[in-house]
């Protein structure tokens, strides 16, 4: 298997020219990206089969998808799915991702939906192509389709060795010219679990060899002829106005091409990257006004007190108020979750070439079609004149600054009249990426005389996770004229527990920071609150946390993953807190059950050690059981699950965006620490394969139950309940008293 060839072919096949290839070891082939090469004329409308798939004269299959890979192995998984559906070798499938001129619109690559919604039309296209090819072969051999079999792209009449023909011979280099009905009801059938060869196999990822040998084409490596480098200068406060700037402050910077101002948008363009950085650092600008931020210590009061936009009641069963009124006992607690960052390791980057009324933009965008429309409006040029070419960026864990960098580069290129590459500085990324908003959650449980929960009430205050959507880029906001984005998302999600009387409401409030989805938005926060609170209720009755949960969990899939984790962790049934040895370092175990959408369930059992003197929490072991439908690639899934757990530990123990009254002060890795290698626990992962449930993406599920599992383990160790993420040493120490 030579996986990289697929991707290289795909890249070259669009518009990259391979030049300067040196035979000397250690000098990489440089890829020059140009917009002059016209894309192969092909349809991109979803209703035509040729939009999705082609078979070359050499039998190679090219699949075109609007979905993109954020470093999670989607390209490999798509290759497995297509290979199985079409009956061709994995090595012969090339995936072309994210190019507005080549790939059909498939919406956003978000919400862990690539493996389900993203893959579905590709599988349908492959199945339809196979059906047409079999029909062609049947006509050729005057046989019926039922007499045919296909292996590795070769169609044979069963039992007649002379009657065989390849896909390449049947259609190679030509179009199908067939309509594609995206519904599977009309006779088209996707393969069932018993017919799959590669789905379920740990096929090695196609991108890894190139990534570890420095030959992978990241968006950061895109270079086009005449390209300049740009950097942006952001205001000192959100909403500040640019009164003016002093051009003489940068007159000594060699290579400076231009200072660009548009409204409150300010940037510099220079011949070389370090020159642009220097100019952005030196440019003296005068800003006035701007929004005063709340006191950081009062963040959650500020969230609760901010102007209410809308309340969504997401669940309301029975009568919570009367059940509470008649309860023998009421427990309540408030949980808070901070503002957090995606904090991608490679700051946002894009290259834009905006000239002569046309724009070509190379971007790590997760929503190329949305970004295309927005950039066209922002630049004032027709939609058809804008081409967005996705190139893989640094890992993202929700939508983040990629589209922002694209907007920056586009404005700078338009003003400079040459292509401009922008990469954000670290302080741009930390200070201005669209963030995960703070949340405050009030929980109440009404108990009957036996301690049974009869009423459950959950009220959440949060700004929407969608305020940083496309069209709300920093650049467009600063330049003026951007549409405000009204979609509200990231509210609470009702858990699978059945409490009889249950009410959950999300109160969306006015924004503090521009916000967007960060891995399991709404769920990660709600799960922390609910699973910690249930632990409180269980502890109040000296009940074992697992046995207590089982009383309210009826969902079979939920119980299956709960049991799997409990068994793997050799869970000892007893109430929390555990026997406390009174040592300076105490150990504890905690459990949390989490879910993501109707088909995905996970349970985590965490072992922690708490140093009472320093307040430092060390996670020593994680056991996780996860179910997310039919497993496409077990090793890839395990990797995703573990990665999500580790990021969850990082978010739980270390991460909170701090700010003063003017701006974010968590502007680097010291002021926004994340998990490092010495913090990493052992992880045991149990994958629950559901062969008869369609495959579901796993990027978010495993991160959902982490915070509560750790908080519950800390309670088990110390008897102290933490209701505020992150569990930083000073906070833990102070709680321990």
């Amino acid at each position, binding site marked *: 298997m030579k996986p990289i060839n697929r991707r290289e072919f795909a890249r070259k096949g669009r518009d990259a020219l391979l030049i300067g290839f040196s035979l000397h070891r250690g000098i990489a082939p440089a890829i020059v990206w140009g917009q002059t090469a016209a894309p192969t004329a092909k349809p991109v409308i979803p209703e035509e089969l040729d939009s999705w798939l082609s078979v070359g004269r050499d039998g190679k299959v090219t699949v075109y998808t609007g979905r993109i890979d954020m470093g999670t192995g989607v390209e490999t998984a798509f290759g497995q799915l297509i290979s199985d559906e079409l009956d061709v070798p994995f090595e012969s499938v090339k995936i072309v991702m994210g190019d507005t001129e080549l790939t059909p619109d498939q919406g956003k690559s978000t919400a862990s939906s690539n493996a389900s919604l993203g893959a579905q039309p590709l599988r349908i296209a492959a199945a339809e192509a196979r059906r047409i090819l079999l029909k062609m072969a049947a006509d050729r051999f005057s046989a019926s389709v039922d007499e045919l079999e296909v292996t590795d792209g070769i169609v044979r009449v069963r039992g007649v060795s002379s009657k065989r023909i390849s896909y390449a011979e049947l259609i190679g280099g030509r179009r199908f010219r067939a309509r594609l009905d995206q519904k599977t009801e009309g006779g088209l059938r996707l393969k069932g679990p018993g017919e799959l060869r590669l789905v379920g196999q740990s096929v090695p990822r196609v991108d890894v060899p190139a990534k570890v040998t420095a030959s992978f084409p990241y968006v950061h490596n895109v270079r086009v002829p005449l390209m300049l480098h740009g950097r942006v200068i952001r205001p000192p406060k959100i909403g500040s106005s640019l009164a003016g700037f002093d051009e003489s402050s940068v007159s000594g910077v060699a290579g400076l091409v231009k200072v660009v101002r548009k409204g409150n948008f300010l940037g510099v363009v220079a011949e*070389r990257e370090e020159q642009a950085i220097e100019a952005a650092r030196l440019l003296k600008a005068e800003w006035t006004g701007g929004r005063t931020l709340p006191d950081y210590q009062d963040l959650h009061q500020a969230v609760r007190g901010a102007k209410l936009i809308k309340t969504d009641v997401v669940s309301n069963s029975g009568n919570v108020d009367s059940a509470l009124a008649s309860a023998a006992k009421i427990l309540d607690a408030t949980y808070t979750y901070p503002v957090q960052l995606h904090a991608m390791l490679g700051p946002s980057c894009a290259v834009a070439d905006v000239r002569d009324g046309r724009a070509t933009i190379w971007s790590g965008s997760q929503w190329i079609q949305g970004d295309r429309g927005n950039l066209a409006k922002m630049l004032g040029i027709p939609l058809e004149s804008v081409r967005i070419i996705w190139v893989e960026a640094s890992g993202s864990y929700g939508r983040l600054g990629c589209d922002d960098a694209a907007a920056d580069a586009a404005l700078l290129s338009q003003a400079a009249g040459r292509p401009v590459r922008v990469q954000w500085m*670290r302080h741009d990324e930390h200070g201005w990426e669209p963030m995960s908003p703070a949340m405050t959650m009030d929980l109440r449980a009404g108990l009957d005389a036996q301690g049974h929960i009869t009423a459950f009430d959950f009220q959440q205050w949060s700004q929407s996770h969608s305020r940083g959507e496309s069209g709300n880029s920093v650049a467009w906001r600063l330049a003026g004229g951007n549409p405000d984005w009204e979609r509200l998302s990231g509210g609470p999600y009702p858990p699978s527990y059945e409490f009889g009387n249950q009410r959950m409401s999300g109160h969306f409030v006015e924004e503090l920071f521009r916000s967007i989805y960060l891995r399991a938005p709404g769920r990660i926060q709600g799960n922390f609150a609910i699973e910690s609170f249930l632990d409180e209720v269980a502890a109040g009755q000296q009940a074992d946390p697992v046995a207590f949960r089982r009383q309210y969990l009826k969902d079979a899939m939920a119980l299956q993953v709960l049991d799997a984790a409990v068994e793997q962790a050799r869970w000892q049934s007893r109430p929390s807190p555990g026997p406390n040895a009174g040592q300076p370092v105490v150990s504890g175990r905690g459990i949390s059950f989490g879910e993501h959408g109707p088909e995905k369930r996970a349970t985590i059992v965490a072992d922690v050690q708490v140093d009472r003197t320093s307040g430092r929490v060390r996670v020593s072991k994680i056991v996780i059981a996860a179910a997310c439908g039919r497993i496409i690639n077990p090793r890839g899934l395990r*990797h995703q699950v573990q990665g999500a757990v580790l990021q969850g530990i990082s978010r739980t123990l270390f991460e909170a965006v701090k700010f003063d009254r003017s701006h974010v002060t968590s502007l680097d890795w010291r002021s926004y620490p994340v998990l490092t290698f010495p913090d990493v626990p052992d992880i045991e992962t149990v994958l629950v394969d559901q062969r008869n449930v369609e495959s579901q993406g796993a990027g978010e599920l495993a991160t959902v139950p982490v915070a509560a599992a750790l908080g519950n383990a800390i309670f088990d160790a110390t008897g102290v309940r933490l209701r505020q993420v992150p569990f930083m040493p000073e906070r833990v120490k102070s709680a321990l008293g």
Partner: protein
Amino acid sequence: MRIQLRVNGRAATVDVDPSTPLLYVLRNDLRLDGPKFGCGLAQCGACTVLSGGNPIRSCVTPVSAARTKEILTLEGLGTLPHPHPIQQAFIDEQAAQCGYCISGVILTAKAFLDKNPDPTDEQIRRALAGVLCRCGTHLEIIRAVKRAAQHRAKA
């Protein structure tokens, strides 16, 4: 100013301001895209290259200070057709997700293994404490470094 460097076993001459961080010279002048810009503050390790066998942060190293020693980037370690055993170990363990950190990780691991041929897991964790990975590939990376050490012991 013309500055002579030795990078990946070859001589290279660049004409840049001597205060230019080595990272931009490697990437933009020599087209060696292995080292990545992560923070510009020597905090994340994405820009790590080896200088005389020792890891340095190329984002804060002026090119003028890099003249005296041999520089090694990920491109100089091995190639796609002929990966270095450490790179092969990372392939075998599938130790990359987005891969943005991986150049710095592999070069840090190489310098570490050169001095510590038979490390424990704990030593590997400590050796990699200064390189950040945001995707959560830590466990695969630790296994890959361990595998590379075992390969070296056998060789």
